[in-house]
Structures are given as C-alpha cells and as structure tokens.
C-alpha cells in the first residue's frame, strides 16, 4: 500500500451519507492474495499469514492484517519479513488462483457497469453514473458490490465513494479493511485538508520532504498556498496539479479501455547468481515465453526491454527499439541478450531478470517483411509450429536447445536447471 500515511483513525469515521454527485467508486480487495489463500486454509484465519515465495527469496506479495500488525508489508524482502514475524505462516503464491478470483471479482464489477478500470488484479475504479437509475444511489451500489464479493468470492473489500477518482481511492484506503466510506461533495475538503501531503497522488518522498521544509504538511496547507508560490516551488505542472488536487479537483475519468501496453515475464532465481551462462539460458526462456504470448495476443513489439535486479534490490532496465517489429523468440532473445551483454556484469550478483515486449502494435498493422529476409520467415514459421505443438502437448513439449536440462552444466554452482518461476505477473500483463 503506497499511501501508508493514510491510516484509519481510532473510532468511527464518517462524513455523512449524502452520495449525490459521487459516482466514482474505488474498490480494493483486502489483503487479496492472503485472503484468497485463507479460503483454502480456514484454520489460519485470524493468524499472521504471509504470501510470498518460499525460502528467503522474493518479496512479500500479501499479508493478513495480523501479519501487518507485526510490521510486515507487501514488497518487503521475505528474509526481513521472516525475521520480524517469525511466527507467521508462509504460503507460496498460487497465481492462477488469484487471477481466477480476480476475474470473478471483476465480473461482479462489470455486472454493475461497463465503466470499470482495473488497476491491478485486486483494485479497480468504477463509474456508476449509468447504473444509478437501475441500481440506486452509489452508496447502495457499493454495499451491493461488497455483499456480492463476500457471497461469491468469500473475501472482503473496501470501497471509497466520492466525486473523483483520487478522493475515492483515498477513501477506500481510509476505511480498510472491510469498510465503506462515502465522501459527500460538500465534505471533500473537510476530508482532504487534514491529510498529510504525502496522501496526494504524485507526491513521493522527495516532494513531501520539499513541501515539509516549506512548512506545508497537510493538503490544507497546500490549498491555502498561492498557486504561483506552489508553481515556483515545484514547477508549473506539478504545482498546479497539486493545487487542483488539494481542492478536490481531479479531471481524470474512469477509462475502461486500457489497452495492453506491454507483455513481459520475469524470473527470480532461487539463489543470486553471477553465472553468465545460467542467466543466458533464463533470458532465452523468458524471450521464448514473451514471444509466444505476443503471437497468441496477435501483437508485435517495437521495443524490447531487459530488467536486471541485483542482490541489493537495485534494478537496471535497458531497452532497445527494433528496426522491424517482431513476435519472434529469437529476435526477442537476441535483443535482450545484447542489452544484457552491454552491462558488462562481472561480480554483480543477479537476483532477477525480466524480458518485456513494449511499444506493441497489432500484428495486422505491422509492415510486411521484405522478401530478402525470407530466412527469417523460416524462423518465425518454426516458432509458430512450436506454438501449435505446445497447445496440444503442453509447454514443455518443445524447448529451445539452450533450455534443455543438462545442455549447460549447472552442477558446478549448485543451481537447479530451472529457477523459481514465481514472478511474471506485472501491471499490463
């Protein structure tokens, strides 16, 4: 939760029930992965549970509120989480389960209105303006959704109801878990102004520090600062952006047609490694996978990007734009490997690599390749044929030579032939 500053205060909160002019709902599942897991582990309800890859690798993906009370939060390295919450149960992530639950939840949303903008698996904005006549006022719709999510999926969510997206999101955060908070139009400022500046969308740690130095601690402080002063302090765009927000103004509308911007996969290794050959095989596997997904989605990528995360969690991303858009695994691999080799890594301990296809264009829009490049057709045809085989016999049926276990001697450095394929779900996937 990025807005950790916004905590639910002691006692009841409320700004009244008047939901007139509050068509925007922000719905956020409570401790989503963990809640889904608890459906299968009823004996763990009420205990600290952490979802994250086993061992000390990876990060916390989700944690129950009991675990959060011990200081665990998502994105925290698992090793640290284990240290501060040794009594917590650790469950390995089961992504298919979550995506299934997510689809169910999103289906409930879409049954209310087509105006659903998913932000991730467990979070969405809804604009219920069109459903008011059919289903009643926003508050009622929100209650309805909350009830259906509990009934159908067995998990809880929190809903913020407000005139604008960012206020709705702040409201849902404020009433977590299992809450509902309406911010009536005439209460928006009363709600916003006491909040710390960090609550505002676009205010990161650095901007917050800057604002604090100027004596601007709350959203109200910002609202009561001359716009020109904010612009001088923060720049024209940021200044007016924050000023608008501080007065509850957010012109963004709910956009249900978020196009797929990129396709990517990444892999966290079971142990950090500096073994170039090993990394090469993993990049090849990821490239292969990404290309297959491109073809399945009928996209071609103009840009290939490579992500490398190191043992200290610092991350490098490099990308290259291709001359011709591609959906061929070999092209993706060649580009990704060139990017990797250019890093010249020697002692660096690598924790994760990711390959991503970006700048996607629909396959039918891609320019036809020239005849001179005919052999490349051969490569693509082969991969398409492999897609077919895989569809019939499963993913392991056909594997590029480099990925055949034993093709590269792994025993020296004690690496298993395959890393822990935990990650792979990222925004845009």
């Amino acid at each position: 939760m990025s807005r950790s500053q916004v905590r639910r205060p002691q006692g009841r909160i409320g700004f009244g029930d008047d939901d007139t002019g509050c068509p925007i709902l922000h719905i956020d599942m409570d401790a989503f992965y963990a809640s889904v897991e608890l459906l299968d582990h009823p004996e763990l309800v009420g205990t600290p549970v952490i979802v994250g890859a086993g061992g000390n690798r990876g990060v916390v993906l989700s944690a129950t509120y009991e675990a959060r009370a011990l200081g665990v939060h998502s994105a925290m390295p698992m090793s640290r989480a284990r240290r501060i919450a040794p009594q917590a149960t650790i469950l390995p992530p089961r992504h298919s389960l979550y995506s299934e639950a997510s689809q169910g939840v999103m289906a409930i949303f879409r049954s209310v209105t087509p105006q659903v903008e998913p932000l991730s698996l467990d979070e969405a904005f809804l604009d219920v303006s069109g459903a008011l006549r059919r289903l009643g006022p926003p508050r009622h719709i929100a209650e309805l959704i909350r009830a259906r999510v509990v009934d159908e999926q067995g998990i809880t969510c929190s809903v913020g109801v407000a005139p604008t997206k960012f206020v709705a999101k702040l409201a849902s955060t404020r009433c977590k878990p299992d809450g509902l908070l309406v911010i009536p139009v005439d209460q928006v400022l009363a709600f916003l102004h006491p909040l710390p500046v960090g609550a505002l969308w676009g205010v990161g740690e650095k901007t917050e520090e800057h604002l604090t130095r100027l004596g601007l601690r709350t959203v109200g402080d910002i609202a009561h600062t001359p716009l020109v002063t904010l612009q001088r302090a923060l720049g024209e765009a940021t200044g007016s952006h924050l000023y608008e927000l501080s007065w509850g103004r957010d012109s963004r509308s709910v956009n249900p047609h978020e196009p797929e911007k990129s396709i990517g996969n990444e892999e966290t290794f079971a142990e950090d490694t500096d073994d170039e050959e090993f990394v090469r095989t993993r990049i090849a596997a990821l490239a292969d996978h990404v290309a297959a997904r491109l073809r399945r989605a009928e996209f071609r990528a103009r840009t290939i990007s490579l992500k490398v995360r190191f043992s200290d969690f610092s991350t490098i991303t490099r990308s290259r734009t291709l001359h011709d858009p591609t959906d061929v695994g070999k092209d993706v691999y060649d580009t990704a490997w060139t990017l990797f080799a250019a890093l010249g890594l020697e002692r660096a301990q690598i924790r994760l690599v990711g390959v991503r296809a970006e700048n996607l264009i629909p396959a039918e829009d891609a320019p036809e390749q020239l005849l001179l490049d005919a052999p490349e057709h051969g490569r693509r045809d082969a991969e398409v044929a492999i897609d077919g085989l895989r569809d019939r016999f499963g993913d392991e049926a056909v594997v590029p030579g480099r990925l055949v276990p034993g093709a590269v001697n792994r025993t020296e450095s004690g690496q298993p032939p395959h890393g822990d394929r935990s990650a792979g779900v990222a925004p845009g996937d």
Partner: protein
Amino acid sequence: MPSTSTPFTHLQVASSHSLQYGTATAQALVTRAAEFGQPIIGVTDRDGLYGAVQWAHACRDAGVAPVIGVDLAVEPSSPTHAVSRRTPARGGAWIEESRPRVVFLASGARGWASLCRLVTAAHSHTRGDPYLTWQSVQQHHEGVVALLTPDSEPGRLLAADRPWRADAAVRPWRALFGRWLAMAVSCHHRPAGHRHSLAAAARTVRWARENHLPVVLTNGVRYLDRTDAPVADILDASRLLVPLRSSRLEHANGEAFLKSSAEMAQVAEEIARAAGERDRHRLVTDTIHLAEFCALQPERDLGLGEVFVPELDVLVDHPVTDPVREATALLWQRCRSALPQRYDSGELRAAEERLAAEMRTIEHLGFAGYFLTVAEVVDMIRAEGVRVAARGSGAGSLVNHLLGISGVDPMRHGLLMERFLSPLRRMLPDIDIDVESARRTEMYDRIFERFGHERVACVAMMETYRVRHAVRDVGKALGMPAAEVDALAKSFPHVRARYARSALADLPELRSSTFGRLAAEGTLDRFLTLVESLDGLPRHVALHPCGVILSDLTLLDRTPTETSAAGYAMSQFDKHDVEHMGFLKLDVLGVRMQSAMAYALDEIERTEGVRVELDTTSLDDPDTFALIRTTHTLGCFQIESPGQRELIGKFAPEYFSDLIIDISLFRPGPVKSDMVTPFLRARQGWSSPEYPHPDLRSIVEETYGVVVFHEQVMQIVATMTGCSLAEADESRRAMGSPEGQDEVRVWFYRAAHAQGYELAVIERVWEILRAFASFGFCKAHAAAFALPTYQSAWLKAHHPAAFFSGVLTHDPGMYPKRLILDDARHFGVVILGLDINASRAGYHAERMPDGEWGLRMAFQEVKGISDTEVEALVAGQPFSSLEDVMHRAGVSGPTAENLVLAGAFDALYGFQQGTHRRHHLTRRDLLIHIAEHDRSRRSQISPAQLSLDMSSTITDVVPSGLGEMNAGESVRAELEILGLDVSHHMMEFYEDMLADLSLVRARDLLGCRSQQEIFVAGVKVATQTPPIRSGKRVIFVTLDDATGPMDATFFEDVQDPYAGTVFDSWLLMVRGVVRRTGPRGVSLRATGCWELGEVRRIWKDGGREAVIDLVDSSPVPGGGEPRSRPILLHASGFRQSPYADVKPADQAPSKLWHRSPGTPGW
C-alpha cells in the same frame, strides 16, 4: 639412502600474513613443524614479507631454522592480450589473479636485501595490485633462489601439457638465475589437468630431469590442518569478492595443510612412481638440500637487533669522517649552550652534573646521532609554526629538554633518565612527538623531504578480523542478503570475532534481538562457526597512525615497502617488527587538542591583537587551577571524562605536580591496587600518610605514601638494594611477568637484607612493589600529558571564546559538539548563529558590542557543504543577497537550502523567528527562490546561456506568503543540518513536562541526599563501556539537560531490561539512586530508563499519573542469578569483561552523541 622417516622441510608455506589467503599463524606453523621434527621451515607469504620478523622469532623460539621467501606475481613472458574490458554497470569487476606466480627464497644477507627490493618493486605500480616486471627481477635477483612453482608460467604450461612452450618460458629464468633456479612440484590429488594434480607433478619432474633442472617438492601450504579448508574458502571468497558458490573459486580440497614428513614422503613416492623415477627419495633429498642452502641466521642475515639511524652527513652540511665522535661532540655542544637559558645559576651546577651523567650513557650506547635526528625533526616542525610536544618517557631526559624535544623540566619534577634510556639495554628508546592533528601529514611530507625517500618510511599496521568484518565477509561469501548482513554486523559491538556467539547470548541488547533468537535456536551455527574461525586473522594492511622510520641509506635493503592509501611509502613491518629490526621509529602523533590550541591562539591574536606564548606560560596560574577544581573541565585535555571529573572533584589539584599525579592515578593499575582511596584519604587529611621506612619517605612523600609512579618503584628498589637506577628499572620491567616476579623477589630480599633492612620492612615494601607490578604510570609520561592538560585549562580559564572556537573546530574531545556548545553558554559565551557574512570555515570568537564574547557557528558544520563552497563563501564575503551568494559563490542548490534552513541568511534579510508579517520575507521565500533557480539551471542548455539568463530573468527573492519556521522547526533543521541545537537547547521543548514531573535538574544534583531515588532526563551525550575490575560490563551514560552534564551508571542487573533503551534512544528519562562521592562528586546508580519522547506522549495523553503507571509497570532490576559468561584474565589477575575494551555498536545519528570504550579503570 634416506628412509621414509627422513624429516621433510616445507619450502612453500603461506602463513596468515598472506592476506586473506593463509589461515595459520607463524607461531602455529613453526610449532607444528618442530613437533614433526622438521629442522627447517620456509615461509613464503604472498605479496610481502609482513610476517618475516615474526617468523624469524617463532623459529628461534621453536629451535627451527627459518627460510624466508616471498610468493610474487610476475608479468608473463608473452603478455596475453587482455581484451579491454568495459566497466561493469553494477557490482564491480572480477579481481583478477591471472598472473603467474614465482616463489623467491633469500639466501644470506644479500638475498634478504634482494628480497626486500623485489617486494618493494612489485608494489611500485598500482596500489593493491603487486607484480614484478621482468626488469625488476633482473635488477634484484642476487642472492635469491627462484622457485618455479606449479603456479609459475612453466608450471602452468606443464600442467596444461605444453612442454615445448614451457621450454621457452623457462629459458629467461635459466639465463638469469643459473644454478639458483629450481622447479617445485606439489600434488593435492586434484583431477588431471590441474596444476596440483599428480599427473602435472609427474610431468614436471620428468620434464625437469630432461632439462637438467633441479626439482623440489612443496605442499603449497596455506592451512595448518585438513579441517581448516573451509576457512581458506571463505578467505578466497572475500579476497576475490565473490560468493562461495561462485565457479571462479577453486574450492580447497583439504590437501594444502602442513603435512608430516611421513605424509610428504608418501606424496614424493607417488610422484616419483608416476614420473618413472628410479630414486624414490630424490625429490625429498633435493628439497632438503635447497632448504639447507637457504636457511637464514636472522641476526646475521636480517640484521635483527642492530641499530640504524640517518647518517650524520644528513644533519650537518660538511663531510663527516668520524660520525660517532662528531655526533657526540655536536650533542654536547647543543646541550651545553642551552643550559644557561633553562637554569639559573643556583640550579646550573646540578644540571651540569645531570647532563654529564646522561651524556655518559648516550656516549656509551653510541646514540648521539639518534638524539640529534629527533631534535632535527622537532626543530623542523617548530620552524613550520606547528605546535609540538613530546610524550612518553622521553620527558625524563634532560638532554631531550635541552634539545627542545620535551617541554617538561625533568629536574624540577623528579623525572628519571633511566626510565627512558638505560645503559643496560642497547635498544633505541621511544620518543613520541605530538603535533597538531590537522598538520600531521604535512609534517610527514617535510620529514620525507628532509631525510630523503631512501631513508624514511612509515610503519604498517596489520588490521585483523574483528567481529563486524568477519560477519560481513562470511555473510557475503554465503550469499546472504546484503541488508541482512549489514544489520547483523552493525548490531555487534566492536568485539573480537571469537566472541560472536557468546556476545549474542550474553549482551541483553543482542540477546533480545532477532539475531539473538536465531542464534539461540541454532539457525546461525554454521555462520557463526565461520565468523569465529576468522578471529584475529590479518585482513588488510593499513598505515600506522603515527610511526615513522628514520634510517640510513640501507633502509630499503632491510625492509620491503609499499604505498599506503594516502601515498606514503610504508614499511611492511609493524611497530614491533620495526623495533626488532633496529630502526629509529619516531611516533609523530596527530593530536587534535594541539590543533585546537593552535587555533585558539590564532583566535586570541586575531581578536585581541596579542600573541600568547603558551609554551612559556608559567605552570602555576591560580585561575587555571581554580577552574580545574570546579570540575567544569569539558574540552580540556585528559580531564574531561566523567571518571576524571569525579576524581578531580575529590582531588582538587592546586599545582602542576597535582595534575601529574591525577593523570597517573586515573589508570587501571592504581585502581586495581586501590591506591586512589588511601591517597585521597591522606590528601584530605582523614588519615596520615604511611611510610614503610624513613629512607623511602622522600620518594613517596608527594603522593602521601602511595606508590604511583614507575620512577618511585625504581627509586625504592635502588634505595633498598643499593643498585643503580638502571638496574632498578630492569627489575621493575622483570616484575611484569609472574616468573620475573619470583626472580626479582629472591634478589630483592637478599640485596635489601644485605643493605641492613629488617625482614618486616622488606616484606612490606615487597608487598607494595608486587601489587604495583607492571601497573602504575611512568611519571615522565604523565608530566608530558599534564602539560597540554594545563595549557588547555589555562586557555579555557582566560580566553573561553577562543578556546571553545578551537575545541569545536578541531573536535578534540570525547563529547559531542552540542555539549561543548552548551558548556560555552555556561561560561557566558553567547552562541551566534550561522551567518552568511560573518561565519568562517571554522568557529570563531567575536567580541560583541556590549563587550561580551560570542562564538560564531562555522560553515564547516553545514551538512554536505564542500571545501570549495566554504572557500568561495569566505572569499566572497560580504554578500548582498541570496542571488549574490548563488551567483558569486556558486554553491549547489542543496547547500544553499541548508544554509537558509540553518539560518545563515537571517541577519542579511532581517528574519525573526515565529513572526509572520505579510509582505515580509521568510526563510521559506528563499527556499522557493532556490528551487526556482535550480529548475531554471536544469532547463538551460549551456552554461553561457545560464549566466545570461540568470542575470536577466531572476533578480532576487520575492515574498510568497509562506510563514516563518517556528522554534521547533528551526531546532530540528539545525540538528539535521549542523548536528547541533544552536538557537534553543533540545530540552527546552520538554521544560513543561520536566517541571510537572518534578524531575531533578543537573544543577540541583549536588543538593540531593545520598541514596535518594530520583528521576532525571536529558539528551544522551556519551556512553562508555570501559573495562572494570569485577569483570562485569558497566555502561556509563552522560546526559545533558541544559543545566549541565550528569552521569548515570548502569550495572549488569539493570542492563537486562534497559540496555536496549540506553543504546537505541538519545533522549532519556533515567531513574536512579544518588551516589555522593566527594565534595563535588555526585552520580547516579541507574535503576531504570525510558525513551523521553515516549514519556512525553504518555504525559500528553494521560498526564503525570500515566507516567507514574509507566514507571511502576516497568521491570525493577535485581533478582535472577547473573549468567555465566567468558571473562578475560589479565596477566595480573585483573578480570575484565571481553566486551569491555571495545566500542559499543553505533547507530545513527551518531554525530549527536559520543560512544567510546572510555578510560580504563572506572
């Protein structure tokens, strides 16, 4: 024909002085060889001769003959064209160890000299990457045997089965070394193709026979026992900076240990068999022959125990024919001519006699050149205008006083030459010179210039693994997450690595941590075993903080040198080795107090136009002693620690000699033998001094019958036995060990009896001497210390503003600056804020319009400010506006912001805190201006446009409507940026609560009854965990509550529940029992403590009652058996906690308080 029981000799052994490579100490290896009955053993450390002197000594002690060599990388004959590597984007490059290596063994003195030169040559390229060029091998091969090991170029080629290329590679070696060349084979039963495989060894033997090259057998030893291999792996991983599992590591297979002769015979047989040799023993016999050829006689070949000082020619500007005679004459002349300046006619006669006596000793030892050299260095330093003072026993010598080396008059203070220089031992004495710390390296440069680089080198210091380094290296090697390793390492206090496990179990603040829990569960077992196995192993070489060697032109034939990080030529020997090697070692120590005093003197001259000659100021100024007696001695040299302030409070010094006694009493020895109590009782007239015999009265009268000084021991022994002072000093030294004590006792009884003393008297005196043992203090040393103590107190008493400027600028003491600042306030000095037009680089004194003294904050304190920025600011003053500062001084945006936030522009713009008048500027308007300025600078394309743009579009600050910072915000900004609370004391923000809770303030402590339970609160300014007698750990905490400092002691029973709070918080409320210790001495025995911020929150919510509840619900110390834990037994039987002599773990923000082990004894 030798049988299998023929003793083997190891010729290739890496000791722990092969940094991060060898795992066994010289001592252990030599002892093992002796146990095996091996008559000779060679040490061939990698890259240096760091351990050579220790090796020679270990061999001498074990009765084994030493061979000394070095294992060096050598430029390959045909350079492999290294692909130019790009700099890795992250994580750094591999540490390459690809160059072939050759072992060079010294034969005789010539060989030793060449070995030194070879090592120096190898280190003459990039620091940290030693290797020999072929040219340096050619230059320095005389007297050296080259051993082409399996890691040499021919060795590697043969392992790779390229004999024809080995032929070519060996050719130049053969041409250069002739018969002084041998191949060496080793077999570690590695797989074929490996250079330590049986096949490679056999192939090498066959090849060597065909080429008529001698070949010997070694075991490439790098550990003592087979089981030490994992430690070698950890060292490899740390040296190469890769994790243990990396394929770049050649994992140890347990064969490279110091094998017995039988085991080596077996290896030899296997190789011989594989090589098809008829004579199965030839390898071993050839090895022994080579060892015998290279075995050294350290005294003869290394020159151990000889004395070398710079040639007299260097000091005088004419050719010298008879250096010893001329040096003596010159010394006589210099001393005689100084006599009348130092002594009036009444004293002159005695002084002349003493000079004659000292000169007899110096002539006898032939050390005149030594004194002249030291005098030359001191003169040179003084000529540079740098403050200099001698410390140590050298102050006992009149010659040193007359030469101006020591400022203390030995005649007046009863200091003895014999404690410093004895005709009975021909070893160069130690003279330590304190100089201004800020100019120490400058003085090094002068010394190198004056005596020449061929005669001067600094001294090295071997940094060994302590727990934090060990945790880091093992953690990295095991591939633990960096953040976890860091957290674990920092949680440890600075203890020895071998105490890692017990520290986790014993120290309350660690036991309760997660790591303590994991250790208790056994999760960290493997990890901790490895950490403990690194204990004490040398990790890297550093420059010794003060040692400088001055020698004659043969210096580089007798010590290898390398370049220190700061660029100084540094001998590879440490300070002990250097002494054994007979070098003149001068300790030129940087003392921050000397810098502080120099700065203060300049400030006095600048503000008052008077140059105070501190060194000639009389030593009996009543105001100075009056100040000392108030115990308000923060910032003063040697007497500012809590323990010292308590002692001064009881002691009440009146004369310079009292200071000498005070400094000597504040040591473990006097504390151990409980000298302090009878001394103070007698001094305060509560008891009369006791003298065991009237003859001794004059000796111990000044210390009320208590033996405090080494000099007194010497005089007592001399008086009772009739021996000379030099002999008395020998027996004093001998009493340091139990065996020595027994010997001296027998002699003392007999001799004293012969002098006619009664047995009862002898027994009593002996008891006193025995208790004194090796403790106590050299009076000359104490006197040398007392001089800057007095001088700093004099400055504080007479020129407080200048004194505090110096102290704060050079940060000399044990306390954080904020406490010193507060002390300045108590001395009536007004603290003046940072001011863009009035501040300088350092603090400075300012005379205010009303005649009061002010102390101006320094630019150097501003967080992140660069030296260039400070210079530009000072050079550019006065400034007319913020824009003017940014434009002309070119300060960076963040620095400009920090200057604004710390109040540097308040005066210029007339800001006043807490006011907000419309259309009036505030600090925040300046911040906005800076942000705007920065943004426009970033958006510019070229600097030319920038300057154009700046002058045209941005003029100066305009009001923005933002309010001014309030007092709390200002102080927070000051703490963050300056590390000091300048405008308000931190505790002002707690005043209301302190009053409501009726907490006792520091200024009222003296009014408390003894044994009364009270509560106090304050900012933590220092914690100390010194060694104390009982072997338990005690935490001393100094708090500052704006009315002065106060000291609380946490004994072990309180530490269990409260140590975590003590170490982790910096604002504390402490409950304690008042302990009165003298007229001005008062401290608290703590029984609990709480974080003050938390107390305040509770107080805000629930008032007084809630705080009382908190206190009542907190644990009460006592109850529960103390846990058993390791206790170090000192030679004297003085028990101390193993966690005591160490720095406690530090946690940010460290600038705000000070932690130290503290002075031992209290």
